[in-house]
């Protein structure tokens, strides 16, 4: 028994060392590993973004595709014509419609993120404090909704929230209200839809942060005179902040550009940038304008993230 385990111990590290050595021999093996996701991002994110950006600098045309091309090369006169149209961007800032769509999207996303955090934190806390089988069960319950199509789940909410839906039926049957509430096709329905859909994206990073939290720290805080509420605000919350930030970003960013939920649950006055984008592309068929909207949205979303990351890195260095 002991001989077997000893020999395993003896070969274990040498085997690993051999593999590592072999890996090291591949010149730039590290870069090879990194290049796979890099290539993925380049092909499926960066190049499409450049295409969209390029379209945003063109003009609408009745053609296929429905925009003018940026470069025109005249073989006979050896002339390269580059026409860049910034008019779409100017229009974007001149018309209040786009600005209010951006602001409204950010507002709806921010409020939804706040409620997701409010609901997600206790859930994540409970999961992190549970043990063994219970923890596995709770975690799988969080992930379970992904087994059903997102679209179907949003349609289900339409059934739940409509005038003769489950919520109204229940409230009327217990006599709380006389006439059915209008929930569907209001901002409230959009909030409910977003909070419901993105809750797992909040719970999982929070759970990861809370799970790492050392129980002795909470006991130490209590030992030094903290009531449970104080312990939460002075210890638990600050230490789970990375999880809070990650969860909020994971909810906020897709929520800003959300299209399906406001389209299905929201009313005609629920103005969100995702719907504007859709309308520009498919109703007005103004691809350059739609591309400009998309480009600005990306910048609006990426800038704050980069600032937060930068800040976090600086803090990481100082500590």
């Amino acid at each position, binding site marked *: 028994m002991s001989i077997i385990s000893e020999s395993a111990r003896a070969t274990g590290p040498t085997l690993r060392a051999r593999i590592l050595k072999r890996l090291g021999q591949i010149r730039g093996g590290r870069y090879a590993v990194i290049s796979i996701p890099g290539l993925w991002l380049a092909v499926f994110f960066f190049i499409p973004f450049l295409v969209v950006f390029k379209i945003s600098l063109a003009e609408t045309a009745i053609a296929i595709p429905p925009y003018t091309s940026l470069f025109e090369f005249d073989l006979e006169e050896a002339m390269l014509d580059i026409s860049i149209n910034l008019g779409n961007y100017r229009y974007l800032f001149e018309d209040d419609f786009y600005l209010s769509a951006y602001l409204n999207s950010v507002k709806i996303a921010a409020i939804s993120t706040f409620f997701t955090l409010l609901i997600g934190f206790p859930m994540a806390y409970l999961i992190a404090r549970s043990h063994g089988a219970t923890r596995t069960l709770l975690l799988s319950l969080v992930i379970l909704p992904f087994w059903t199509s997102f679209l179907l789940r949003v349609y289900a909410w339409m059934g739940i929230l409509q005038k003769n839906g489950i919520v109204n039926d229940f409230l009327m049957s217990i006599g709380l209200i006389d006439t059915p509430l209008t929930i569907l096709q209001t901002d409230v329905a959009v909030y409910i839809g977003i909070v419901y859909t993105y809750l797992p994206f909040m719970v999982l990073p929070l759970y990861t942060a809370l799970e790492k939290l*050392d129980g*002795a*720290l909470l*006991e*130490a*805080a*209590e*030992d*030094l*005179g*903290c*009531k449970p509420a*104080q312990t939460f605000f002075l*210890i638990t919350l*600050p*230490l789970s902040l990375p999880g809070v930030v990650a969860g909020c970003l994971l909810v906020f960013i897709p929520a800003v550009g959300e299209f399906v939920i406001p389209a299905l649950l929201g009313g005609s006055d629920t103005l969100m940038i995702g719907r504007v984008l859709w309308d520009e592309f498919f109703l007005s068929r103004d691809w350059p304008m739609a591309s400009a909207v998309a480009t600005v949205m990306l910048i609006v979303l990426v800038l704050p993230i980069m600032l937060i990351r930068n800040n976090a890195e600086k803090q990481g260095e100082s*500590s």
Partner: protein
Amino acid sequence: MSFYTAIEPEQAEACDNGGVSVPLWRQEGAEPFVKIESVTKNFGDFTAVDNVSLNIYKNELFCLLGGSGSGKSTLLRMLAGFETATSGRILIDGVDTSGIQPWKRPVNMMFQSYALFPHLTVTENVAFGLRREGISRSETKQRVAQMLDMVQMGHLGKRKPNQLSGGQRQRIALARALIKRPKLLLLDEPLGALDKKLREETQFELINLQYELGVTFVVVTHDQEEAMTLATRIGVMNQGQIVQTAEPHEVYEYPNSRFVAEFVGSVNLFEGRVVEKTPSSVRIDSRDAGTTLSNNHGINCAINQLVSVAVRPEKINISHEDPEQGDNCVRGKIEDVAYMGSLSLFRVKLDNGLEVRVTKPNLMRAAAERFTWDDLVYLSWDEDSSVVLTS
């Protein structure tokens, strides 16, 4: 010394009392500071602490010594209020603590992992307890500075815990636990995470600090050496029970059971039957030793009772010549020699196969070379050196 400025007048007084004459625990009828009254703690089917009663006196540095799972940590956590006793009660300074939440107890704890708050600086960590009490900023600042100076960490106030070494963290944890001037300080394996050299230094600092502050310390440890150096008294725990409570030398020299004898230090045990008994001595016929062993302590046992004779390795004389002593003398062959610098350890195999451990201080340079492998040697000890154990 500057230490005294940090101490309340009553505590300073307590210090003085602690320093003189007979310690409280030796006085008949002295009032205990911590009274543990037949406390039991069950976790489901498992009994972690089994009907423990214990008195701890003011200014004591009491060590709970035991292996893992002996219930020592559970007992400590009950004193801190993190666990509630299944039955029995604990009084601290005359107050029944059942139902008192951890944050309301006049007790602080130094955690085994130190549990320093990683997002706060050293100063903020130490100030944490005072801020919760609502003590003014200026007073907090002054007391924190004093406390940090006391543990010689004044220059590291702005660091975060992850920028400190293990020894520094230990000091900060100690400072944080002491700053509220608790009546009782609980220390869970306080030196467990330090390396040997640092541990030795810190042991003495801890004793000095405890003496200066006059706070009652309860230390949990699995390290018998640590318990021996630190403690005023040791409570040896096994399977949820306290098997012996005594001063360190007593635990070592007069263990009350085979468990204590084997757990604290190393020991040679010879089983045998009592053949002769007077009020002040016994003779035991031991098959293990292959001879009769005698002991001049008054033992409560019966003729023909099966007992164990315990002899510490350092109390055995080793010689090449037969000391011609009737009892307490066995013969064997040196099986193994371990030279350990200040002393040498011999493993001697008796004629009947039993192995006996003997240590011998290397008083002279060549001393270690006098005994070597396969030497035939005689091992002998005084009547007074052994302990007869009935359990």
